[in-house]
């Protein structure tokens, strides 16, 4: 099966590009999949911003994930829901894109990306420029048929090491092949930054379960991620080492720093703020 525009593509239709700086569109989360993580919602926002950026430079360059100033994790989404996507570009040229963006479900925000900066790289190294042009034309007209995404293959990190309640460590061996690598990207497969964030959030959830509960007696949940920086491309088959470390805890919030390494090289960093789970 050709996985291009299927295995890791999360924009069904582009409904408006205003002045080349504001783009809007939507994505229907397939009803038949098990789940759709907040990281994939962030990926969808990044992808709609990427379409605006590529169109702005006539598909000579495309953005890749780099820096995210903040991610507000407002609420989770379910299969079958439709994401309304929008992104505002603060700037784009052949060296970088700067943007912020939001995903909403039925008028309510579910996730917001703030102050994102991504390097622009030559499209030809990563994808077929003509295929991207044709896809952009399709998305901007009738839109793509929804439902192509069949869900994520499980990526299981193995926990080991750390200090209970203070830090946790995990190792993830990336597969050499996976459908998402064929879409991200066809000519040069790269482990998506959003999936790295997903691993970070899973590790922090594991640490959160070990931290003494907040003062309301409930659970810690990730509310916001700040200062995400992805320092290098991660090819298929690599081994990633994660460490999440509690740096601060108060009555109603906790701060966890997460580092991702490939060998000795620091590949990703982020800070995740935990808050108290709201009671219904």
């Amino acid at each position: 099966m050709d996985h291009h525009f299927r295995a890791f593509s999360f924009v069904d239709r582009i409904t408006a590009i205003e002045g080349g700086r504001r783009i809007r569109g939507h994505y229907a989360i397939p009803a038949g999949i098990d789940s759709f993580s907040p990281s994939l919602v962030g990926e969808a926002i990044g992808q709609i911003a990427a379409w605006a950026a590529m169109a702005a430079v006539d598909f000579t360059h495309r953005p890749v994930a780099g820096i995210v100033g903040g991610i507000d994790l407002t609420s989770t989404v379910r299969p079958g829901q439709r994401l309304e996507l929008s992104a505002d570009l603060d700037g784009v040229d052949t060296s970088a894109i700067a943007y912020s963006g939001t995903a909403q479900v039925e008028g309510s925000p579910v996730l917001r990306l703030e102050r994102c900066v991504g390097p622009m790289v030559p499209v030809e190294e990563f994808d077929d420029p003509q295929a991207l042009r044709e896809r952009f034309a399709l998305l901007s007209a009738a839109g793509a048929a929804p439902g192509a995404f069949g869900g994520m293959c499980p990526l299981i990190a193995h926990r080991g090491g750390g200090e209970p309640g203070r830090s946790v460590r995990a190792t993830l061996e990336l597969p050499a092949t996976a459908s998402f690598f064929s879409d991200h990207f066809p000519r040069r497969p790269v482990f998506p930054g959003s999936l790295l964030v997903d691993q970070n959030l899973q590790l922090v959830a594991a640490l959160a379960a070990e931290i003494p509960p907040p003062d309301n007696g409930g659970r810690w949940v990730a509310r916001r991620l700040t200062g995400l920086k992805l320092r290098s491309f991660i090819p298929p088959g690599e081994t990633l080492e994660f460490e999440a470390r509690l740096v601060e805890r108060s009555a109603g919030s906790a701060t966890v720093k997460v580092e991702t390494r490939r060998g000795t090289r620091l590949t990703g960093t982020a800070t995740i703020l935990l808050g108290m789970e709201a009671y219904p």
Partner: protein
Amino acid sequence: MSNANINKEDIAALLPKVAETIADALGCDAANVKPDASLINDLGAESIDFLDIVFRLERAFKVKIPRGKIVEEARGSLSESEFENGGVLTPAGEARLKEFLSEVPPDRFKSPMKAAEIPRLFTTETFCKMVIRQQRAAGGSGQPA
């Protein structure tokens, strides 16, 4: 754009805010961001960090910094072929770079030098000068925003 008339007082006026901005981007203590610190060799910066720093400086000083153009600026009036040959700086290119990056200690310039190695020379003061040049180009005073 030249460095003409950027003096030590101009740089000193911006230095604390530039150092703080660089420290925030690199996640290090601002006290470690010395004026002559090489961002790559001394502070461990990578290419994504330069992008981060430039965008943070743009926000902090309300200027537009042309990304990826610092090497082009360093070239000045020299053509590309006068500045470098096969990715290696020509003698004229080396002389021009030393003049442009006058804040960088002379012993850090190699000869021969690859153009790709130029960012290794960038110091905290290099970014101060970058902001001042853009402030002046925009008609500003070259003072902190």
